[in-house]
């Protein structure tokens, strides 16, 4: 088994401190988060670098950061569902901090259901037939997992049916939402003018104009909240700063996924990628945390250090997992992460800096994999698979998530037909303990099959 346990980290932390480890204000031993109720940390295995320690501490102190921001007079904006667009606008204002209430979907996993968010969501009519992001509704009820934002935005339309239902229920509880509509990205008609989007997609000129007008409404609402006018120059600066984090992440992904021997575990890579969409409530610190991870990866690669055997099977992972432990399991089974599409591939692309900033954001928003067809998403995934040299594809379904119901089959068929690679689907609920044998069997079988294909 690769990685170290939390108990190992207790000892390792002391060693690092004795060796002169300098930490940001949110630093400290990981163990303290367990005392706050993050029980799942006891069952995960971690990378042992100081960079990974910083990554975890940054992730697990987001609530503290939000409360501090509020006490410093900043406005908190809960940006729901758009996965990477509105935060760029929000962070362009001097006194606004954006965060994703959607992130509460991981709370039942991290706290091993001890927080009762699913039960609360069910009592408000959203049972297990909905995506685990329903935990967010429970978090709004308890007000215990994030401070209630001063303003909420939510992308609706082609994004996600489950999320729309959940957000509507949140609004019904008395939290007004600034809705903005996302049309379904579609194939242009014969006489329609098209625009190329980041990620290699296309949309019609009309669609881009529509999304731009929707984002203008959000921009106005943000300006009213903050009391500042969001000028084009401010927004351009914001885009540049967002791109800085995205560029670092892009370098990190390329370095890790193409390294001869994997330098960074799948679990830490997934968390690093998540920062692209929300900056974990601190854009500048996100860039620094990612820079640290990149430096660690580069150091290991140049020293020939890998965390896994060189012959580990190179797996492309589709969709985020509700239980973080699944990423450890991949490596236990003989795989390594070699590419991923966690449903927000558009947030990994740099935002065009040579366009009017609102036009650039509209184009980026329309490149969201969730607002196009499953075939579109499959095309992008296959381009990435070829770029990273993945040998097999693992599609993890999220129980109850409507967008996962049939999409996996479409992606799987495309990958098999066009790239001739083995594919397997697994379903990862918020706690996988009882299902671990069946999940492991599928992943191990995928890896055995990929090894067989090497011959």
């Amino acid at each position, binding site marked *: 088994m690769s990685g170290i346990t939390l108990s190992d980290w207790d000892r390792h932390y002391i060693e690092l401190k004795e060796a002169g480890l300098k930490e940001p204000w949110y630093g400290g031993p990981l163990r303290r988060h367990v005392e706050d109720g993050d029980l799942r940390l006891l069952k995960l295995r971690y990378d042992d670098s100081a960079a990974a320690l910083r990554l975890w501490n940054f992730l697990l102190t987001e609530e503290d950061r939000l409360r501090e921001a509020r006490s410093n007079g900043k406005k908190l904006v809960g940006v729901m569902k758009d996965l990477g667009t509105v935060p760029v606008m929000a962070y362009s204002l001097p006194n606004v901090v954006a965060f994703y209430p959607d992130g509460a979907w991981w709370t039942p996993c991290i706290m091993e259901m001890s927080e009762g968010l699913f039960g609360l969501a069910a009592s408000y009519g959203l049972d297990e037939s909905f995506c685990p992001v329903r935990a967010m509704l429970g978090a709004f009820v308890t007000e215990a997992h994030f401070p209630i934002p001063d303003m909420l935005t939510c992308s609706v339309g082609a994004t996600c049916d489950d999320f729309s239902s959940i957000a509507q229920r949140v609004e019904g509880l008395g939290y007004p939402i600034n809705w903005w509509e996302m049309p379904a990205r579609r194939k242009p008609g014969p006489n329609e003018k098209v625009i190329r989007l980041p990620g290699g997609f296309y949309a019609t000129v009309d669609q881009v104009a529509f999304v731009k007008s929707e984002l203008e409404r959000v921009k106005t609402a943000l300006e009213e909240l903050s009391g500042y006018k969001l000028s084009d120059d401010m927004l351009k600066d914001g885009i540049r700063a967002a791109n800085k984090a995205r560029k670092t992440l892009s370098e990190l992904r390329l370095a890790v996924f193409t390294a001869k021997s994997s330098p960074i575990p799948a679990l830490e890579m997934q968390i690093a990628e998540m920062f692209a969409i929300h900056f974990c409530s601190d854009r500048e610190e996100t860039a620094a945390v990612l820079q640290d991870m990149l430096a660690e990866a580069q150091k290991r690669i140049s020293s020939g250090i890998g965390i896994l055997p060189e012959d580990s099977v190179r797996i492309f992972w589709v969709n985020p997992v509700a239980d973080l432990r699944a990423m450890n399991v991949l490596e236990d089974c003989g795989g390594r992460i070699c590419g991923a599409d966690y449903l927000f591939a558009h947030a990994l692309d740099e935002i065009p800096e040579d366009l009017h900033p609102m036009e650039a954001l509209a184009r980026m928003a329309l490149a969201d994999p969730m607002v196009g067809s499953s075939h579109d998403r499959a095309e992008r995934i296959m381009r990435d698979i070829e770029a990273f040299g993945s040998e097999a594809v693992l599609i993890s379904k999220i129980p109850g998530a409507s967008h996962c119901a049939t999409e996996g089959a479409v992606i799987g068929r495309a990958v098999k037909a066009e790239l001739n690679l083995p594919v397997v689907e697994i*379903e990862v609920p918020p706690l996988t303990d009882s299902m671990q044998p069946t999940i*492991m*069997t*599928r992943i*191990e*079988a995928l890896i055995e099959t990929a090894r067989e294909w090497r011959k």
Partner: protein
Amino acid sequence: MIGVGIDAGSRAIKIVLMDTMTHEVITSGTVGQGVKSNDLAMELFEQLLKDSSHNSEDVQKIVATGYGRNTISIADATITEITCHARGVHHVVPEARTVVEIGGQDSKLLKLGPGGSVQDFMMNDRCAAGTGRFLEVVADRLSVGLAELGELASRSVTPAAISSMCIVFAETEIIGLLASGTPPEDIVAGVQNSIATRITSMAGKSVIPPVVFTGGVALVPGMDKALERVLGHRVETAPNPQMTGALGAALLACKPKR
């Protein structure tokens, strides 16, 4: 030397001892699964060694497979039942291109390449419909033994339509059918068709013959015919189908050590 394959399945533990040079089965045995899976496997393994006049020093390698493979402490390696069934079926039916394996707890469909390598696989391990468990529930409900189900189904003239794909609701349907006077043989035949249909839904449209049927449920008479009806291909039942996984594991245990 001996290669040992242990298939720790959900309903039974199967062990095959194989000659590493000739790949001939020296002996094999089965014991019902229980709480102490490892102890049961150890007892059976030691008995088989003794019966075949071998001892542990003759053993080159032990490969464990099946749902409980990670509980077998004497295993030198664990390999999934996907790979082991493929290897086992290829050994006994080298021309096989599709393998349907129905066990007590799950069902699988494997597509094999010409050399017996796994090209693709599909699994149902989340729902009892389409597994041996479904047949057990039906046998229990009809108060007949599992072994009698096939004979019973062969007498069916009009198999009942079991519309539900969920074992819990299907049981309700069976109660309803019994109450309405449907003959038990038609119910059993209907259930066999239901399981076969479930397998077909995993297979899609791309079943390549020859199709080989394996796993414990292949021992239930009539299931092969039900599969033939829904797959549209002749289905050959593997010799000693319950042992195929252990056979494949034994073959893998016979590979020379690196």
